């Protein structure tokens, strides 16, 4: 079933860019929904990491409320990172990735569809689940809106940057730890502005500046990251 979906755009002569994107996105989403554990695992991880902090640091509500913006953001960042390793792996192993590289359709679109599908399966659920973690960590109610908005704008950027790391390490047997080494330093700006937005929301300061910066990073990522991902995939597959 999945194979048919892959070959479909290649068989027709010159499908439109939107058509390619839609077909690739549909296939990736279908595949992701078929393996539900991959969908749920990052969410469980997200919840578990958030549970560790009260146990490890202090269960005192006032203290946790102070840390909550950063903690939720770090947990979301790590959960995204954890799910990155498998982004291109299955496609690499069964040869789908090679077909995508050989196909006449622009690789950027296929890659962008893959990342969008990944975000729908990880970043979006994380964003929707974040208020639960906020409650567990006693984040003040004023901060919830900022938390969700900042995650909504920040997690796609995390997916885009992480995909560069995934593309660089796809052919390697020891991808897991390596990906975090490559990607974590690049995540720092998103973390700073994401948790900054939540902090601003908690203290009642205007959010717009933080959200605008997160949006700017997302715009830059959407434009530039697919180029790097495509180049990295070509290198990894041919090497």
């Amino acid at each position, binding site marked *: 079933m999945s194979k048919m979906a892959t070959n479909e755009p290649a068989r027709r002569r010159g499908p439109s860019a939107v058509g390619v994107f839609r077909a690739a996105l549909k296939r990736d989403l279908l595949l992701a929904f078929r393996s539900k554990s991959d969908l749920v695992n990052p969410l469980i991880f997200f919840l578990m990491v958030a549970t560790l902090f009260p146990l490890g640091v202090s269960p005192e509500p006032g203290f946790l409320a102070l840390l909550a913006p950063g903690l939720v953001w770090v947990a979301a960042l790590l959960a995204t990172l954890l799910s990155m390793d498998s982004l291109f792996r299955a496609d690499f192993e069964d040869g789908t990735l090679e077909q995508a590289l050989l196909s006449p359709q622009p690789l950027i679109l296929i890659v962008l569809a893959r990342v969008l599908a990944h975000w729908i399966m990880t970043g979006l659920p994380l964003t929707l689940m974040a208020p639960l973690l906020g409650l567990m960590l006693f984040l003040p109610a004023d901060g919830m809106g900022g938390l969700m908005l900042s995650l909504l704008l920040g997690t796609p950027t995390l997916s885009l940057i992480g995909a560069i790391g995934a593309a660089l390490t796809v052919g390697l047997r020891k991808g897991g730890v390596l990906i975090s080494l490559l990607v974590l330093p*690049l995540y*720092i700006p998103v973390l700073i502005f994401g948790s900054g937005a939540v902090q601003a929301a908690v203290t009642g300061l205007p959010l717009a500046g933080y959200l605008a910066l997160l949006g700017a990073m997302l715009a830059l990522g959407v434009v530039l990251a697919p180029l790097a991902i495509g*180049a990295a995939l070509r290198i990894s597959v041919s090497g």
Partner: protein
Amino acid sequence: MAKNKTEKNWMPRWFYQLASPRWCYDITGKLLPAFSVLALLLLLGGTVWALLFAPADYQQGNSFRIIYIHVPSAILAQSCYMMMALAGAIGLIWKMKVADMVAKACAPLGASLALLALATGAIWGKPTWGSWWVWDARLTSMLILLFLYLGVMALHSAIENDSTAAQSTAVLALVGLVNIPIIKYSVEWWNTLHQPATFKLTEKPAMPAEMWLPLLVMLVGFYCFFAVSLMLRLRHEILRRERRSSWVQALVESR
């Protein structure tokens, strides 16, 4: 063909010659002694000048003299990343083997310079700020730069094929290059949000000439030293990668 010729006109001849590992090995062999002598003289002279003749700071006393190692290594760590990314881009675009080797040689050098800058910063911070580490914007961005170097090195060592490793690390270095200004400004903003203007020490004070002249000498000396160690690493890498070619075998046999 004609197009090729016009291209050769605006690109200097030595640029193309550098693409040949053998030519590059020869020319670095000729440059190496000059740069070694220069580096030795400048570093020795600069150190003596800085430690014995430059005036002590009126607030920090003699402890400020670590600036003569700290600042050059910090500046060099940053320009080394630029060079690594640039060499990686040249390697990606023109498929130049030598550029790949330069990029590979840059990574450990840059990492050690960043580490040196952090270590001297910590040693300097203890008497001046009272603690080894402060989450100051500059310290943090230097730490992140070190992480970027470590990532590049880790990726290089994980890929067995030399040319794939070079291309992959070049892509990573370029992604890092785009990110460095973003990281730098976000870290600066983060810092000013949390602790506004605690330390203005990191900003260059208006130093008298007796203080900054030895610093300049040390900086140039550091650059020469960097050139020497880069050339040594590059020559080693050339020999390793070209070990099957006849000129390397002849070179080894003639020794």
